[in-house]
Every structure is written in C-alpha cells, then in structure tokens.
C-alpha cells in the first residue's frame, strides 16, 4: 500500500479563523497543527526556545503562526498567512487573518477562498462587537459553513449554562441582523484551545457536550462551494492553437482552456459563447491531455467544439438555456482595500473572471458600519470601508449574483497607475 491511498479520498478543505490573539486564535491553529502531528520536531524546538526566552512555562503554540520579522517586532500579525495540515483523510488550508478592526480587508481576502469559517468567542466575554463584525463579513463573503467556537471554557469552569447563554445570544443576534438567513450550516462548539478540549480530542471536562469535536466537524464539512447543482460557467483563460506542430491532425486544433467555475460539461452539450452568442456542441473535453466524459467544478480543462467559433480570453462558455446576464452596469457590495481612497472621478479596471474592463463609479448608495451593519451616507471610501456602489463598464460582464455564484459574482478593482488591487466587489 502506498502512503497516499488513505489520504486523497476526502479532498481538500479551505477554512479561515476569525478572532483576535486575545480569543486564543493563534493557539487554536497551533493546537490543530500540534494535535494532528503536523508540527515537526525542529519547529517545536524553535518555539520552545522562544517561549523560554519570553519567560513562559509551557510551549506557546500561538508562536507557530507568527509572521514576518517586522510584524514579530510589533508583536502582532497584520496579514493573511496560510497554514497546512493533513489528517490522513483530508488536506486543509487555513487562512489566518487578524481580527483587528482596521484589517477588514485582510478578513475579506481570507474569506474569499474559504468554505468554512471558525468564529472565535472568548467564553468569559461572550458576543462582542468583533464577533458581530466577523459574522457580518463571513455572511457578506458568503462562506457556506460557519463554526462558532466558544473558547477558553477552562476559564469559566466548563460551565454549560454559560455556553448555552452565549449560543442563545449569538442566535438572537444573527436572527435580528438577518445573517445566515439562507439556512446556512452553523455549529457551536465549547472548547479550550489551550488544553485541547474538543479540538481533536473529546473533552473530559465537558461530558454535557455531545456534539462533534472541531476536527470531526472539519472532516465532515462538504468541500465544494455548494451542495446543489449550479449552471455551467467556463471563463476562457487561454486558447491553444498549436499551428506550428508537425502533426497534421493538430492543424485545426482549437482548445479553449479554463477552469470550470461552476456546474459541469459533457461531450455533446450545446454551449453558447459569450459575448458573440454563437452556439456549438462539445466535441471533446480534455483534462491534462486525456479525453474525459465530463468536466466538473474546479477542474482545469480544455474544451473542443464541433464548429469553428471565434473565442478568445475573457469570453465565457455556458450551456445554452442557462445564459447569465450581460451587464454594463453593476450594483455591488465593495470592500475598499487601498490606502488611496476610491475616487469617483477616476477610471479603474475591473477584473471579473478572466475578463477585464474599464469601469467608472456611478454612485455610492451607502456605507456599512461593519460593527452594527448600520447604513451610513458616504461620498468617498477609504481602506477597510464596505459600501454598496454602482459601476458602469466599457465591456459587458457575464455575471451572476454573488449570493448564487461566488466565481461569477466576484470582481476585483485595479488601479492602473500602479496596477494595485484596490477593491473587492460582490455583485448584487
């Protein structure tokens, strides 16, 4: 038996952790890595040394997620860091984003690729402003699975009544704010990251808790974006035309290369090419040079069509009968990421799937207070602001509402002067 036979079955899950250092977030990540034996001896020795140097008795697992030199000097984490571990049945990518108010942009960035969010609550403090902020952002970026981790149970004597009260508080809060109202999967776990209660091993101190441990929950969470069938969306990344080949069979070869962003495609399916609207049937689907019967979501494939249609990067192949809206004006939630404020006068670039278009702001409907979700009037946006805005575009986008399709509902805003990514948008 080779070592990977027991690893690949359950795929890969990307999740994020929301909380501040005070909630024990770094300790939780350290604990997951430690208890799944993902930390090797030399790394452990290094953090043992640092822990001793800082005068601590036990190994500080939070040091495992320590960041870059400059940040270490400041003693805080200021960006998204990615960590990896594997349980033998599933591989995990953790996006570790900080919980500070001024770093909304990092949380949105981490959330954009996560299929599950762990929202940390300090059991001593209950639902705080930052809990509300994290929950709102997880809702906004449409993370399908939410775990509310009530941490530091050891500091409240593993009190069930206190845990139940926090759960009730949280449920009242999301009901009031209309968060996760779409029947999204939300789970609550009482834990102590410091002692390892209910992380990987079941807690002996909380016999009253009969639910799953965090790791059991992670192992079961569906890795795909959604559980239901979605329309086929295939933004063309690259067109393969190997004309110079010595092989005459390849002279007419035209392969449309891209990633299946949602849905699936089979040989014989009738597709429509956007924007030109022409139709053709699928002659073949290739994956890594091999013909396959069906291409599914997240696969990077090549599609060959029966007819010769002019298609280039930035176009989209969809199934006829499931054609998305072509939009030259969009209404969107926008998170501003740049230190330079959004200027209503300037022209920006919008990248949506593989398509790029010039774009101009048409208006800011309102800004949202990330803590209270209150709508505030705004004439400009600065870093970490989230607002409902309108853009008009030079080229049409083939878009679905973000709430229905993360891949065809998302876009980034680029400042052409320095090519920075300055905004993250979600089409309404």
């Amino acid at each position, binding site marked *: 038996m080779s070592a990977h036979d027991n690893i690949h079955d359950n795929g890969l899950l990307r999740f994020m952790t929301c909380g501040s250092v005070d909630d024990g977030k770094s300790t939780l990540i350290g604990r997951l890595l430690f208890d799944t034996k993902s930390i090797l001896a030399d790394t452990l020795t290094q953090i043992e040394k640092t822990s001793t140097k800082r005068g601590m008795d036990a190994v500080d697992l939070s040091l495992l997620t320590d960041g870059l030199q400059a940040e270490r000097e400041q003693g805080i984490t200021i960006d998204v860091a990615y960590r*990896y571990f594997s349980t033998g049945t599933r591989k995990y990518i953790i996006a570790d984003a900080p919980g500070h108010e001024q770093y909304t942009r990092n949380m949105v960035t981490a959330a954009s690729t996560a299929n599950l969010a762990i929202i940390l609550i300090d059991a001593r403090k209950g639902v705080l402003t930052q809990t509300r902020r994290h929950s709102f952002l997880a809702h906004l970026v449409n993370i399908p699975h939410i775990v509310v981790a009530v941490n530091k149970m050891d500091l409240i004597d593993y009190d069930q009544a206190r845990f139940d009260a926090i759960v009730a508080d949280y449920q009242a809060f999301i009901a009031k704010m209309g968060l996760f109202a779409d029947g999204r999967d939300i789970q609550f776990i009482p834990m102590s990251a410091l002692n390892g209660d209910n992380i990987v091993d079941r807690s002996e101190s909380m016999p009253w808790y009969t639910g799953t441990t965090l790791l059991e929950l992670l192992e079961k969470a569906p890795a795909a974006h959604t559980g239901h069938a979605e329309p086929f969306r295939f933004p063309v990344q690259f067109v393969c035309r190997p004309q110079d080949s010595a092989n005459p069979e390849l002279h007419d070869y035209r392969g449309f290369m891209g990633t299946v962003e949602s849905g699936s495609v089979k040989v014989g399916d009738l597709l429509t090419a956007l924007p030109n609207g022409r139709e053709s049937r699928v002659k073949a689907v290739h994956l890594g040079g091999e013909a396959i019967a069906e291409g599914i979501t997240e*696969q990077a494939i090549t599609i060959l069509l029966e007819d010769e249609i002019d298609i280039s990067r930035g176009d989209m192949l969809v199934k006829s009968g499931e054609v998305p809206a072509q939009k030259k004006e969009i209404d969107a939630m926008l998170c501003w990421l740049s230190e330079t404020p959004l200027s209503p006068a300037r022209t920006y670039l919008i990248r949506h799937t593989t398509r790029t278009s010039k774009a101009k702001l048409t208006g800011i409907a309102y800004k949202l207070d990330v803590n209270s979700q209150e709508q505030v009037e705004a004439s400009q946006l600065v870093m970490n602001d989230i607002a409902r805005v309108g853009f008009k575009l030079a080229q049409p986008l083939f878009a679905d509402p973000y709430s229905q399709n993360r*891949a065809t509902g998302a876009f980034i805003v680029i400042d052409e002067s320095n090519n920075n990514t300055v905004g993250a948008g979600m089409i309404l």
Partner: protein
Amino acid sequence: MTNKNLSHLDWLEAEAIHIMREVAGQCERSVLLFSGGKDSICMLRVAEKAFRPGRFPFPLMHIDTGHNYKEVTDFRDKRAAELGERLIVRSVEDSMKRGTVVLKTPDESRNKHQSVTLLEALAEFEFDCAIGGARRDEEKARAKERVMSFRDEFGQWDPKNQRPELWNLYNARTHKGENIRAFPISNWTEMDVWQYIEREQLELPSIYFSHVRPIVRRGGAIVPVTEITPARPGEEIVDLRVRFRTVGDITCTAPVESDADTIEKIVLETATTTITERGATRLDDQTSDASMEQRKKEGYF
C-alpha cells in the same frame, strides 16, 4: 453534485494549472524557472497538463551557481530536451566576471547571489513574469507570500506592499521594468509534492534516492564532501547512506540519512519524518530566524 469533489492532489493540480494559464493569459513574456529539482519537475508536469498539445507559452530558465550537482544539471538538460522546450541557462559565474556579483571571500556560498543573476536575466530577456516552484509550507516568510508576487524595478519584495489576492482573480499586471513572481504550487506541501511525483510517476535526478556518499558531520548537519566543499582539517570523512530531500547549490544543501531508494519509500519516510525539509537540509536558513525574509527583500525567490 456533492460526491463529485476532487481529491486533494487533483485540486492542487487544477489550481496550479489555473495559475499557469493566468500567467500565459496576462503576461507578455514569462519564463518558468527550472532547476532540475523536485518542485520544478512537478511544475513541468503541470505545464504539460496546462498547455499540451501546444508548446509552453514560456521558455525554461535556470540560474546556475556553477555549484550544482552534475546529476541534477544533466537531468535538467535531458528533461528540457525531452519536452522539446527551450532552456536558458544563466550563470552566477558570468555575473562574477562582469563584476556584478562580488563574493566577500572566495569560498562564500554563491546561493544568495543568484538574485543578482536572476534580475540580470529578467532584464536581458525583458521577462515580466518568472514562474517559480516555491511553496508556502517551506518557511515562515513564504507563508504570507502571494501567488502572484509583485517585485519593483529593483526586484525587491516588499512584504507590506503586496497586492491582496481574492478568490481566484490573480492580478499579474506590471509596468515596464517591474515583474511578477508567480508560484503555482504555493499551496503544496513537501508531502503533496512527493505524492504527486508518485502518482504521475515522474522521473527524478538520482541523488533524490538513497545512495552512499562521503560526508562529514558538522554542527549537527551532514555535509557532503565534494571538490567545492572539502573536509576541514580534523574532520572525519565517512561513507553514509543518504538521500537529498531538497536539491540546490552544493554549498548549502545537505542530505539526510536514508535507505529510501524508491518514491514509495520516500513518501512513507516523508509521512513519518520529524524534521522540516529546510530544517534538515538547508545550511543557509539557520543563520537567523529571519534570513529567508531578508533574502526575499533583496530579490531572491
């Protein structure tokens, strides 16, 4: 629908293909860095899956310190020829002749000076993107590295001024003189790399497999005895059964003791090892906690 999830290797491969195709779609002149090492061997397989039956939309390039194992450079040349792709080799020794690389002492490692030669080669060919095989699990400074990492016209990496990366919308835009370093296998771990090599049955340079080699033990590390790295006075040379977990400049890559002579055995050994890849094998990262970060700021991969 729910049962149609990709295996973790399929997912990682699909992501890497997506990233390479983004580079091809967005950049005018890109290059794939190929050293003959295991990570870049995986990248070549990903590139085949991304672009065949077409040719690669980029040449291959190696920055050669002149201090590489012959088994690896021979393999590099052979693999490029088999693929029928163009291989560019630029050498640190040429930069030394030009006077752009000045060693502090004749026996100083040339490894960190690769940055200079790399930047010179990027300028020579006007490459706007270099695709590299770095992984985030290798080192702390890499854990926060972007998939598309922006470098200014001096090739510098500024950890505080990196473009946010959201969804799978990568921004590889540059102005003239600036460049992007693209890392398609950012999310792979050492284990993933070995599993992929096993699954795809990729050929590797022989020194990745267990073999007997003269070594000395120096400060806890196994140092191979070569013309470039002779034993120091008083050190005892012994023959040891070893393999390389990572392959690079001779002066800074150490082998590990191992009997693993097949990929299957290496996968098993990787699953049970207690030392990180760099901890075991890199002689240059141990100088300080932050030395990788320092090198990256200066233009290193």
